C-alpha cells in the first residue's frame, strides 16, 4: 500500500512537472473575451430564426402590398385584387396608375420637360404646365405620355419626390360612364366641381369628371394632401378639358 502511495506521489510529481505555458492562459482569456455573445442566451440562438421569419413575413406583406411583383401576370393579379376594392369607375384610374407608374422603374435623371412635350399630342401637351404649376416644389415630373392600358387610352403624368409617387390620369369617357351613374356621392364640391374620393391600401384617389373626360389624381400621399392637390389642380384642368370638348 505504501509502495503504491509512493508510486502515486512520484507519478503526480512527474506529471506536475509539466506546466501550461503562460501564453496559453492569455490566449484563452482573449478568445473568451471575443465570445461574450453566448450570454445573450436564448435570444442569441433564436435571432437567426427570428430574422428569417421576419424576412418571410416582410416578404409576404410586401407582396400583398404590390412589391416584389416581377412578372406581368403577378402585377396584373395585384391590380385586379386592389381594384376590386374600389368602385368600378375608380378602377380605371387606379389600374393605369399602378400599371404605368407603380411597376415602372423610373430613371434617376428623368427627361427634360421639352422631351415630355414631344411625347404628348398637341391636344394634351398643355396639361404639363398646369401640373407643374400646382405640384409641390419638391416633386419632379417623371413621366408624361399617352398610353394604352386594357384597350383604353390614357393621358398620364407622374410626379415623384423622395417618398411619394402621384399620377394624374385622364381618359375619355366611354359608353355613358359617369360617377353619377355609378351611384357615387361626391365627397365635396370645389369651384362647382363635384369631387369623388376613395382609398385602398396605400393609394388615395380623388376624381372628377368633365363632359367627356374622367380625371383622377392617384397617389400614396395622405388622404387630405391628395385631395388638396386635386382641389388645386381641378379648376385649371376642368377649364383646359372644357376647351377641348367644345
Amino acid at each position, binding site marked *: 500500500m505504501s509502495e503504491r502511495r509512493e508510486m502515486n506521489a512520484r*507519478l*503526480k510529481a512527474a*506529471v506536475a512537472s509539466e506546466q501550461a505555458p503562460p501564453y496559453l492562459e492569455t490566449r484563452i482569456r482573449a478568445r473568451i473575451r471575443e465570445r461574450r455573445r453566448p450570454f445573450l442566451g436564448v435570444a442569441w440562438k433564436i435571432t437567426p430564426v427570428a430574422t428569417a421569419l421576419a424576412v418571410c413575413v416582410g416578404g409576404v406583406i410586401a407582396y400583398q402590398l404590390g412589391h416584389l411583383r416581377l412578372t406581368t401576370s403577378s402585377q396584373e393579379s395585384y391590380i385586379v385584387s386592389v381594384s376590386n376594392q374600389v368602385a368600378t369607375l375608380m378602377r380605371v384610374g387606379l389600374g393605369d396608375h399602378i400599371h404605368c407608374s407603380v411597376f415602372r422603374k423610373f430613371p434617376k435623371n428623368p427627361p427634360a420637360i421639352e422631351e415630355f412635350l414631344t411625347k404628348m399630342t398637341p391636344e394634351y401637351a398643355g396639361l404639363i404646365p398646369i401640373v407643374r404649376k400646382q405640384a409641390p416644389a419638391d416633386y419632379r415630373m417623371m413621366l408624361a405620355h399617352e398610353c394604352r392600358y386594357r384597350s383604353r387610352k390614357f393621358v398620364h403624368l407622374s410626379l415623384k419626390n423622395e417618398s411619394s409617387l402621384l399620377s394624374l390620369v385622364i381618359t375619355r369617357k366611354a359608353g355613358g360612364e359617369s360617377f353619377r351613374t355609378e351611384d357615387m356621392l361626391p365627397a365635396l364640391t370645389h369651384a362647382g366641381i363635384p369631387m369623388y374620393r376613395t382609398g385602398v391600401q396605400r393609394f388615395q384617389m380623388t376624381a372628377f369628371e368633365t363632359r367627356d373626360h374622367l380625371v383622377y389624381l392617384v397617389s400614396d400621399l395622405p388622404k387630405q394632401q391628395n385631395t388638396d392637390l386635386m382641389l388645386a389642380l381641378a379648376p385649371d384642368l376642368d377649364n383646359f378639358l372644357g376647351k377641348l370638348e367644345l
Partner: protein
Amino acid sequence: MADDLSQAEAHWVPDRYACERFELEAMPHLNDIYRTATRILGDRSRAEDVAQEVYLQAWRSFERFEPGTNCRAWLFKILFHCVNHHRRKWFRFPLLKETEEFIEANLAAPEPVPEHLTDQDILAALDRIPADFRVVVLLVDVEEFAYKEAAEILSIPIGTVMSRLSRGRKILKDQLADVARSYGFGNSAGREGL
C-alpha cells in the same frame, strides 16, 4: 466533491458575474487540463489546442453549469469529449482488443521500481501505457478523482474504471521496472521501491 459556493453564488447571473465566476471556478484548473491533455495526446502543441477548446466550450455552455457542482470534473468531462472528437482526426488510440493483447504480452511478474528514475523516465513509462488505461491512471492516481467521478468523466461503468486502473497501475510498474533494468538496476535495487 462540490465546491463550496454560497447560496448567492448558486444562482445563474449572466454577463459580468458569469465572467467573474468563470475566472474563479474554471481558470484555476488550466494546468490540470493542459497536463492531462499532454499525457493523453503526447504532443504539447495539440494539448494547447485542446485545452483552449475545452475552455471555449466550457465558456459557451457555462450558463448550463450548475453552481455548487464540481467545475474541475465538468472541465475534465469536456476535455475527454474534445479528445474523443479529435483523436479520430489526429491519430488512432489502440483499440481495447489491442490493449488486452498488450496486457497479456506485458503482464510479467511485477518488479519493484528503483527510486533513481527521473520524472522523464516516469512520464515516458506512463506514455507507453495504452490510452484506455493511461487516462484512468491519470484521473484517479494523478488528478485524484474518485472512481465514481472518473466513471462519469469517461462515461464508462465504475467497474471498468477499477479494472482499467488496476491494469494500468500494473503496466506502469512493469514499464518502470524495465527502465530500471535497462539502467542496470536489478531486482535488489528495485526493492527500494519508488
